[in-house]
């Protein structure tokens, strides 16, 4: 037998230098230099909680459709000239304008962003085109099992909270008017509370100066909008959503989770990894590598401003839907009842620490991390603290976190699939209710 080589000494987590400044208009600018390739990445985050769902969706598709005397096509061409591109997207917490360009194009990229922020015109022809396109994309999404399962799960776990519905209907989208978009823009697109991150082949001071030149004319203020905390999960019968003739079932289990700043976060992150959060986990080794029920099962902690959640997801063959649920509950229950082995914890810990390094190794990765953490009031130095906490978590702490958060008794389960074929085997394991008829 050949011996597996030992690992070299662990490299300490090295955080890049970040320069941060708040401009007089209230915009916070953060800049990080990573000169590896001659590009810059920009991310602008605007708080967007409680904004009208359909209008926000159309706004993200039409912000770049005309501004300051330029048409949408001219904006696109001007961006291309500096190797640039911009796009915008939204979730229930924020609107994010993301872009990149060749390094020499940074000033121009920021100027165009400024024009859009201060002068987006939402021309009626373009708005009509884009809302039609968006409605069609939503129609396509509604034929995708992963989307349907997510929609049903959000509704089940969030009830009346704004997170419960995150995709508008095609009908809602096509009725959005240019006037409504201009109004939403005026109300919500302002620099106070906004965060701009610039990462790339440029010194932080130069990047911040460029941002100040381009964006100081962007002014205005609006009200702060906060969301209520998400409701506690309410366990109940498994929700069955019918999708006749489906050749696979979409299995989802929601579990409670805590924010990044909670003392249980590090042990829960490790408990989730050991359960199903990476390939070398108990659940993946069981239902994929041993039983062949599924291809890409995953278990993920997601953080939103109003609360965190843990979602277990697998697409499994219709004929093994019941057995797959059984193994899932077994692995959750096993970890919630018995602490993991030391070697399982060490393996998960190394993975958690190593992937922190990988995530920070590109311009786009750094930009994404910086803007995401900033959205939760955190800075990248959080990662060093978090790495320190991960390094210290014990087997007992993981066991305690699993007992608290991964217990099957706290789970909300949902399956989307061919109800006629899968209901009998699911009913053998747990009470089942058809979607739409839950008593919650």
């Amino acid at each position, binding site marked *: 037998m050949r011996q597996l080589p030992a690992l070299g000494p662990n490299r300490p987590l090295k955080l890049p230098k970040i320069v941060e400044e708040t401009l007089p208009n209230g915009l916070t600018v953060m800049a990080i230099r990573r000169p590896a390739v001659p590009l810059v990445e920009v991310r602008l985050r605007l708080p967007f909680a409680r904004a009208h769902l359909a209008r926000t969706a159309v706004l993200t598709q039409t912000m770049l459709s005309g501004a300051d005397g330029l048409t949408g096509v001219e904006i696109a061409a001007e961006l*291309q000239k500096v190797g640039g*591109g911009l796009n915008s997207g939204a979730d229930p917490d924020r609107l994010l304008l993301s872009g990149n360009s060749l390094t020499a194009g940074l000033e121009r990229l920021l100027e165009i962003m400024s024009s859009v922020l201060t002068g987006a015109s939402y021309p009626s022809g373009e708005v009509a085109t884009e809302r039609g396109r968006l409605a069609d994309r939503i129609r396509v999404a509604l034929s995708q*099992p992963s989307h349907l399962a997510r929609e049903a799960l959000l509704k089940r776990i969030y009830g009346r909270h704004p997170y419960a519905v995150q995709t508008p209907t095609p009908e809602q989208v096509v009725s959005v008017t240019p006037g409504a978009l201009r109004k939403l823009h005026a109300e919500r697109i302002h620099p106070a509370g906004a965060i701009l991150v610039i990462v790339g082949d440029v010194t932080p001071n130069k990047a911040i100066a460029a941002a100040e030149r381009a964006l100081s004319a962007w002014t205005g203020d609006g009200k702060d909008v906060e969301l209520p905390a998400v409701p506690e999960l309410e366990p109940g019968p498994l929700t069955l959503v019918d999708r006749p003739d489906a050749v*696979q079932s979409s299995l989802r289990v929601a579990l409670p989770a805590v924010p990044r700043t909670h003392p249980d976060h590090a042990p829960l992150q490790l408990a989730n990894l050991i359960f199903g959060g990476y390939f070398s986990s108990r659940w993946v080794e069981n239902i994929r590598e041993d039983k062949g029920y599924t291809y890409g099962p995953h278990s993920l902690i997601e953080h939103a401003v109003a609360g965190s959640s843990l979602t277990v997801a697998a697409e499994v063959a219709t004929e093994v839907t019941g057995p797959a649920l059984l193994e899932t509950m077994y692995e959750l229950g096993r970890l919630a009842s018995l602490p993991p082995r030391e070697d399982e914890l060490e393996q998960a810990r190394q993975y958690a620490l190593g992937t922190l390094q990988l995530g920070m190794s590109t311009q786009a990765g750094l930009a994404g991390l910086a803007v995401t953490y900033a959205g939760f009031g955190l800075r990248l130095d959080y990662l060093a603290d978090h790495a320190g906490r991960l390094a210290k978590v014990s087997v007992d702490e993981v066991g305690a976190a699993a007992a608290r958060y991964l217990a099957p008794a706290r789970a909300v389960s949902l399956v989307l699939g061919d109800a006629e074929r899968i209901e009998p085997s699911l009913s053998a394991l747990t009470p089942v209710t058809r979607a739409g008829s839950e008593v919650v």
Partner: protein
Amino acid sequence: MSVRSSAIRIPATKYPVERLTLPNGLRVVLAPDRSAPVVGVAVVYDVGIRSEPEGRTGFAHLFEHLMFQGSENLEKLAHFRYVQGSGGTFNGSTHLDYTDYFETLPSNALERALFLEADRMRGPRLTSENLRNQVDVVKEEIRVNVLNRPYGGFPWLKLPPVMFDTFPNAHDGYGSFTDLESATVEDAAEFFQRYYAAGNAVLSVSGDFDVAEATRLVEEHFGDVPARKAPTRPDFDEPDLAEERRHSYTDRLAPLPAVAAAWRVPDPIDDLAGYLPYVVLAEVLTDGDASRLVERMVLRDRSVTSVGGYLGFMGEPFAVRDPTALLLQAHLPPGGDVGKVLDTIDEECQRIATDGLAPGELARTQARMATHLLRDVDAVLGRCLQMAVLEQQRGAPELINELPRLIAEVTEEQILAAAAALTAQRRASVEVIPGGGNK
């Protein structure tokens, strides 16, 4: 805000590249870059979907799965556990002309990754239990990506059989369930023996390491992998289409119509200069709101809701061999007319061929392409994989530093000639007829 005219200078990267060949025939590419404490390790074998035997559709991909099921010194599951337990991530993927296996890790795990790759290059553990298990996993993969979703396999599995006549180019690379289920351990052993030879592989290492030290580690771990020669790669060429081919099929889950069209292009390897104009043309036609087809069809006519263009059925312009194609694909609004969409594409290509490009149109497209290329190589794994394939197919990993400049040197005259070649007579297309409501 006003428009500006001067063209931006296209920058380049200067990643150093060291090449060596071990006595057993293994080619090695080392590209140090100490900007982040991470390394990428990739082994690329010169075998892909086009090389699988008749009656064994999907075998190259199934075999890729088997390469993760244990090897000489490693039990099943050990590979995954050692990579992830070192803080790394892994995967593999099967392409038309190659199959890759790769890890991204903190740089203190470099030697471990080399050990793991060398071990399976010596030989995977092929057992019937693992084979049956992975056939089940692959069937679920096909259900997720093709059978249980709208537009599954469109167009990468649906267009080749329209455009090509021979089995290697035309068949379904994911494979039929019948073929997958009839695969045997003997098939796998033979496939390994023939194609997974040291002489048929490239090892690529990128990132945070010292070249002398990495060279020593590579020699230590791969030096005693038995020498086996690369098999002769068959010529997969087929004649260009002499007349238009159109096909359609009903997708029971798709709510809206879609169409994809393809035209043969020059050999990407032997005629890079003739090929590059098509790579640029695809972007002139479809990159962003200021591109020809988006402006015309999405924004003006509203005849499509999206249109995209790219080279190669798997969208990798610099990781595919001849024969390959330029593809355009579009999604249509409810009741959209695919015939009209194809006519408009013809009209726009002819308009470029006859009237030429607008001032600045080519330069801005080239600048944006440079950004895309540079962005891909910032990630250590992107760099590592691309260099591996450039070495394997061209013996030129350093091309990674030159592509933005080569793209920028494509002339308007070349774009016009490429556009003129996209005629209806040379086109193969496939239409998706929506068979689904919102179910």
